[in-house]
C-alpha cells in the first residue's frame, strides 16, 4: 500500500472539512474582525442534530443517501438559528466595546453551548448508524472510500456556491462592502445589521454540513468535538490569510494534508520517539509558525494595518 498517497487522500478529506469550517471563521472575521470562538460548537451541534435525525430514520426503508440528506436538512436550519441567536445575544451588543469583550463572551458562549449539548445528548458519543455501505476504490495502491469522495465533492460544491454568492450576487456585494468599510456601506443604504446576521447564518449553515461530514467520516459525534476542530479550522483560516475566502479554502486543505503527512511520517522521521499520537500538535505548530513568520497568511494582505 502506498502510504504517501493514502495520507494525501485522508488529508484532502479532512482538509476539505477544515476548509468549510474555516470559511465560517474567515467570513465573520472579515466582516466584524471577531474570532468567533463558538464557531466550532456550531459544527458539533450540526453533527449532533443530524445524528439524532439519522438515528431515528435508520430503521426505515428509505435509501441511505436520503436519510443522510434528511439529517443535513435538519442540521442546517438548527445551526443557522443558533448562529443567528449567538450574534444577536452575545456579539451585537458589544460591537463598540473593547476587543477583549466579545472575545470573552465568545468563549462563554462556547462553554455554554457545549454543556447544553451535553445536557441534551448526554456525555456519551452518538454513533453513526451503519447504513452507508462501505464502498472502496483503489487508485495507485491507495484506498479512497465513497464517504471520502462524497465529502470532497460536497466541499468543492459548497465552496463554489459560496464564491458565486459572494462575488456575483447583490447580497455578496453588500457583504464585501460591509467588510471593507461598515460606515460607508451603511451610508450607501446597506443594512449593516442584516448583513452581519446573514454572514453568521451562512457560516453556521456551512458549519452544520461540516459537522455532518466529519461525523460521518469518523462514525461518531460528541459534545466536545467542536472545540479541537474549531481551533484547527481557525489555524487553517490564519494559514490562508484570515478574512480571505480563497485563503480559508487553501489553508484548510493544506492543513489537512500537513496533518495527515505529519501523523504518517513523524514516527519514521524521529525514530519513533514521537508517534502519530502527536497528530493534533501539527495544526498549532503551523498556526504559531504562520503567525510568527507571515502573520498575513499565504493569500492575505492588509492585515498589518489592522493591528
Amino acid at each position, binding site marked *: 500500500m502506498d502510504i504517501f498517497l493514502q495520507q494525501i487522500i485522508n488529508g484532502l478529506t479532512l482538509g476539505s472539512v477544515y476548509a468549510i469550517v474555516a470559511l465560517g471563521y474567515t467570513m465573520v472575521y472579515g466582516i466584524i*474582525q*471577531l*474570532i468567533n470562538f463558538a464557531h466550532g460548537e456550531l459544527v458539533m451541534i450540526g453533527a449532533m442534530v443530524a445524528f439524532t435525525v439519522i438515528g431515528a430514520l435508520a430503521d426505515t426503508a428509505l435509501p441511505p443517501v436520503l436519510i443522510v440528506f434528511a439529517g443535513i436538512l435538519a442540521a442546517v436550519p438548527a445551526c443557522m438559528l443558533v448562529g443567528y441567536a449567538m450574534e444577536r*445575544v*452575545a456579539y451585537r*451588543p*458589544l460591537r463598540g*466595546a*473593547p*476587543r*477583549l*469583550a*466579545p*472575545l*470573552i*463572551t465568545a*468563549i*462563554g*458562549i*462556547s*462553554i*455554554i453551548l*457545549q*454543556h*447544553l449539548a*451535553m*445536557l441534551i445528548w448526554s456525555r456519551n458519543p452518538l454513533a453513526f448508524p451503519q447504513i452507508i455501505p462501505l464502498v472502496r476504490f483503489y487508485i495507485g495502491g491507495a484506498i479512497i472510500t465513497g464517504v471520502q469522495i462524497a465529502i470532497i465533492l460536497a466541499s468543492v460544491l459548497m465552496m463554489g456556491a459560496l464564491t458565486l454568492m459572494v462575488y456575483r450576487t447583490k447580497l455578496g456585494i453588500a457583504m464585501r462592502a460591509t467588510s471593507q468599510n461598515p460606515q460607508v456601506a451603511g451610508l450607501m443604504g446597506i443594512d449593516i445589521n442584516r448583513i452581519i446576521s446573514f454572514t453568521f447564518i451562512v457560516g453556521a449553515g456551512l458549519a452544520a454540513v461540516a459537522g455532518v461530514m466529519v461525523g460521518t467520516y469518523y462514525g461518531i459525534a460528541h459534545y466536545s468535538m467542536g*472545540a*479541537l476542530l474549531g*481551533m484547527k479550522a*481557525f*489555524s487553517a483560516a*490564519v494559514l490562508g490569510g484570515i478574512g480571505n475566502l480563497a485563503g480559508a479554502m487553501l489553508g484548510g486543505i493544506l492543513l489537512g494534508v500537513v496533518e495527515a503527512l505529519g501523523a504518517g511520517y513523524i514516527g519514521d522521521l524521529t525514530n*519513533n*520517539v*514521537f*508517534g502519530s*499520537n*502527536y497528530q*493534533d*500538535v501539527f*495544526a*498549532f*505548530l503551523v*498556526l*504559531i509558525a504562520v*503567525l*510568527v513568520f507571515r*502573520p498575513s497568511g499565504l493569500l492575505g494582505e492588509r492585515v498589518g494595518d*489592522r*493591528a
Partner: protein
Amino acid sequence: MNIFAHPRAKWVGFALIAIALIGLPFALASAGTAWVRIANLAILFTFLSLGLNIVVGFAGLLDLGYIAFYGVGAYVYALLASPHFDLHLPFWVILPIGALVACLFGVLLGAPTLKLRGDYLAIVTLGFGEIVRIFLNNLSQPINITNGPQGISRIDPFSFGSFSFSQNEIILGIDFSGPIKYYYILLVILLLAIVVNLRLQHSRIGRAWEAIREDETAARAMGIDTTRIKLLAFAMGASFGGVAGGMFAAIQGFISPESFVLVESIMVLSMVVLGGMGNVWGVVLGAVLLSFVPELLRYTVEPLQKSLFGRSIIEPEVIRMLLFGLALVLMMLYRPAGLLPSAIRKRELAKTDK
C-alpha cells in the same frame, strides 16, 4: 457615609477579617473535611487568578492557555518529589524551581507571539495550552518522563523535617487535620501573593502595563519598551501559575494531564472576569465566589433534584460549567468592569478627599 473613612474602623475591620480567616477552617471542618479541602482549592484558584490577572487584567493580554503553566509547575513538583524518579526535594526548594521553569515556558511562548495583536494571541495561547497537554499525555515514551495519561501518584506533601502537612496533629490541645494545616500555609502564601500584586499594580511596571492595555501605540510613543514589558507580564503570570501548580500537586498527591485541560483555563479566566479584570480584590472575590458557589450548588441542587424528580437530571458538573459560561457572557454584557471596581474607586476617591 463611608465607614472605612475612620482610621480606627479600618484596623478593626482588618482584625475582624483576620479572625474570620483564622477561624474559618474549623467552622468548615464542622461541616465536613471536604469543605476545608474546597477552601484550600479556593485559595489555590485565587492564587492562580491573581497570576492570570497580571496578564489579562494588568497588561490586557488574553491568555487562554494559562493552565499550561499550572500544569508545568505541578509536573515539576511531582517529578522532583515523588517515587517516580525517586527524588524527594523539600517543597521550599521545588516551588521556586517550578516558578522558574513555568516562567521559562512563559518566555518561550511569549517571545515569538507577543508581537501579535490581542485576538491572535488568544488563539496561540490556546494552542500552546493544548500542545503542553498533548506532550504531558504522551511523554511516557521513549523515556518515561510524565507517565502519560496515568499521571504521577504518591507525590510528597509539604513538610518541614518531620512536620508533615498531610497528617493529623494535636497542637496545644487543638486537633489540626492535614487540610487545616495546608489551609494556613496556603493562606500565608496567598497573602504574600496579594501584597506582591498590590505593589506591582502601582509600581512603574504596573503603570506601564496599564498604559499598554489602554493604548499600545501611545505607550510605545511614551518610551515604554512594549514587547519587553508584555513579556514580563507573561513571565510573571506564568511563575504564579507554576507555584500554584506545585501547591496543587502537593495537596492532591496525584496529578494527571486531565487536570490541565482548556476548561480549567476558562474557569480561571471566568474568575478574573467576574471579579473585575485588573482589580486585585475583585479577582480575589471572583475566585472565591466561583470556587464556593458551584460546590454549594452541588450540595443543594443535587438532593433537590433527587427529591423532586427521583433522579439527578442535571449533573452538578454541568451546572458548574454553565455557571462559568454565563458569568463570562453576562459580565461582559452588563458589567464589563467586574463586580468590584466601582466600590474600590469610591473608596479611593474618599481617600483623596482627606
